[in-house]
């Protein structure tokens, strides 16, 4: 047991050093303008929905066409049958050392518009959404944002301006 714990702490040592923990007072709510701005300036998010009683979280590419989030993904045969009446959609980014961070959470109903014939849906399908993982059964999903909220801490480059910008769009690039 001791050796396993030791191994575990070695793994931690390989990670980037964590910046000094930020005080809870520094966690602030984003207003809707800030949340929309961050949603519009990113293109990778995570879609969450309940399937057979369990939450599922999937990374997806998207374009935000206020107030609609347009997603293209291959759900696979199983998840194509998932009920999308209430989904959550999340986008986040953070500094490499955790010195700043933000997340935006959108909630609302989702609709599969892959074959929808309405003019609005046809228009949404012209948006430049690159599917992260191209598949044979690519689906177009539309999430209508009913609730939009977000949190932030530290100095967020996109909101506060800064000479030091995140080197990539997503936190995944910088870690």
């Amino acid at each position, binding site marked *: 047991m001791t050796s396993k714990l030791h191994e575990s702490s070695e793994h931690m040592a390989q990670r980037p050093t964590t910046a000094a*923990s930020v005080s809870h007072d520094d966690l602030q709510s984003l207003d809707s303008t800030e949340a929309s701005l961050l949603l519009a300036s990113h293109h990778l998010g995570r879609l969450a929905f309940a399937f057979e009683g369990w939450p599922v979280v999937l990374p997806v590419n998207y374009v935000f066409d206020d107030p609609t989030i347009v997603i293209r993904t291959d759900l696979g045969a199983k998840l194509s049958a998932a009920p999308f009446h209430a989904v*959550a959609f999340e986008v986040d980014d953070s500094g490499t050392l955790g010195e700043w961070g933000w997340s935006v959470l959108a909630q609302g109903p989702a609709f599969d518009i892959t074959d929808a014939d309405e003019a609005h849906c046809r228009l949404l399908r012209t948006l430049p959404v690159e599917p992260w993982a191209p598949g044979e059964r690519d689906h177009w999903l539309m999430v209508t944002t009913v609730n939009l909220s977000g949190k932030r801490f530290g100095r967020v480059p996109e909101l506060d301006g800064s000479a030091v910008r995140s080197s990539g769009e997503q936190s995944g690039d910088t870690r």
Partner: protein
Amino acid sequence: MTESWLEELSQEQCLALLRTENVGRIGIILDGLPLVLPINYELVEMNDRLCLMFRTRSGNVIDRAAAEVAFEIDGVDPSHRRGWSVLLRGTLQHVTADNTLLRAHFDPNSWLSADRDAWLVLEPSTISGRRLVEATLKWAFHESAYL
């Protein structure tokens, strides 16, 4: 456009990725509605037992969520159309052990630690992962060398 494809990651590859990260997203269901939130975590591997430790504020949405949760980590390089994701599914339980002991061994070192006094443990029932591979990419070594 370059053709890319998805491949399944092995359990060992998923674990290797879980060891390298310290922030992921937890998917929960609260009052019937799904939520997904970023959270720091610590992977605990002990006596063939595997779990994730979290710290959060008592009474917040994660603390109040249903026990059935999902947890996701990913790394995506959009410019090269490469990336991976690991998804865990499992049950979330409150830890009532002495905080000092937990801090000494299992602290996820949350970026925001003030008032994060509710300790939670996720016991995964399934772990799966996928990686997007760019077709033009030639692996110089066996793929496990990159993890």
